[in-house]
């Protein structure tokens, strides 16, 4: 029988702790735990628990671009309406400087070090820019709104769309100093999710009629126009979103109109269709999201009996993981 060394050219090494950066397929023996381990890749996406927010809340905004280990959560509602901002480092949330104006259902965009908070409820056009340390008031939206969505790479390039306004299709582009109206969405909507950037984004589900009628489809943004694409399997409102561009996104949580219970439903967009994938462990609506479809984050929201501080981390299929080799 071939030996491990004969196949791989190396012996299985002993370690007192797991190696910091193992390569896929690497096998080692952890002599502290007396277990044989291998660096492998996940075959299915799943949610694990992350550190809880310091302040439980719903209706938050988030920096929707960036890594699972560097997210920003701002605003929201307990009640009361919060100006609180918290930063996540992959393990825990830390309170940082507050927004200048407390609000909820803000359209957020950017990263943990460069973000934008546009509009919100009570209905406002106010926009604030985050430089990694503090918020500064900058140019107002042309149309005051909340209940919409925002995407963007940083605080110099963002897109805001939808919301509770007479024309829910209005889209505005931020260039670092001012907002400009650009092409409308095909179907105006509110209480939707968004993912991507101001040059390649996606608007996910939501509702018309003041939140009463579900819009099940998604629309993708190519930098100049919206295109209607496939329906979600389960259209809903108040869901969260993650994703880097118009070809990959997650839509998770949310609710049906009419006071229905919060949902754990999670769907993944691959650029052409939506497929149901592993649910959140804790069902919730009005949830915040950050990261990508391979390493995402869901936090805050309203669960079955009230606001929640629970954070969940999404690792998509193919993510690296250490597994213990068993022989029985």
């Amino acid at each position, binding site marked *: 029988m071939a030996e491990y060394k004969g196949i791989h050219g190396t012996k299985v090494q002993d370690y007192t702790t797991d190696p910091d950066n193992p390569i896929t397929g690497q096998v080692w023996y952890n002599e502290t735990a007396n277990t044989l381990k291998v660096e492998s890749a996940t075959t299915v996406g799943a949610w694990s628990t992350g550190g809880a927010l310091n302040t439980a809340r719903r209706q938050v905004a988030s920096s929707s671009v960036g890594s699972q280990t560097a997210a920003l959560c701002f605003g929201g509602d307990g009640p009361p309406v919060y100006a609180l901002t918290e930063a996540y480092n992959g393990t825990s949330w830390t309170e940082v400087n507050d927004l200048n104006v407390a609000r909820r259902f803000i359209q957020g965009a950017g990263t943990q070090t460069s973000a934008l908070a546009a509009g919100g409820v009570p209905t406002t056009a106010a926009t604030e820019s985050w430089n990694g340390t503090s918020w500064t008031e900058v140019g107002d939206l042309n149309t005051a709104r909340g209940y919409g969505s925002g995407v963007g790479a940083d605080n110099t390039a963002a897109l805001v769309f939808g919301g509770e306004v007479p024309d829910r299709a209005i889209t505005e582009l931020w260039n670092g100093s001012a907002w400009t109206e650009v092409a409308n969405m095909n179907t105006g909507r509110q209480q939707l999710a968004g993912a991507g950037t101001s040059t390649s984004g996606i608007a996910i589900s939501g509702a018309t009629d003041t939140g009463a009628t579900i819009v099940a489809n998604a629309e993708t943004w190519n930098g100049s126009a919206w295109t209607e694409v496939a329906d979600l399997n389960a259209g809903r409102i108040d869901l969260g979103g993650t994703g880097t561009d118009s070809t990959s996104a997650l839509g998770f949580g949310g*609710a049906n109109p009419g006071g229905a*219970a919060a949902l754990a439903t999670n769907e993944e967009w691959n650029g052409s269709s939506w497929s149901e994938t592993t649910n959140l462990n804790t069902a919730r609506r009005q949830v915040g999201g950050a990261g990508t479809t391979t390493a995402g984050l869901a936090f805050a929201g309203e669960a079955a009996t009230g606001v929640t501080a629970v954070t969940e981390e999404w690792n998509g299929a193919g993510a690296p993981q250490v597994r213990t080799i068993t022989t029985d």
Partner: protein
Amino acid sequence: MAKTYQYCVAENWGKGFIDHVESSRITFKGYPADVWQVPAYNKHGNLWIAKVGGVVKTVAEAQAIVDAEVQAAQAVWDALPDAEKAPALEMNTRPTDITLEE
């Protein structure tokens, strides 16, 4: 009748409470009052309950714990002024009853 799920009470401490491998092996469902549903007769479910120090409950016991939490939340909602009960946009609705599955 063989049960499909088992329940336990365990406080979610955050990172590591449910890890990715556990989540990819079994389906977790969190309920109010730190009640967790995992598959019954499942080695991975049993190992997870042991890891988190979960206190195993029968369905009836778990249902009673969830009911108490839901009813408390409903009482809080019922006591709100009418003006705060109906903002449709926020879906600020009365918490609904939850029925646990066998």
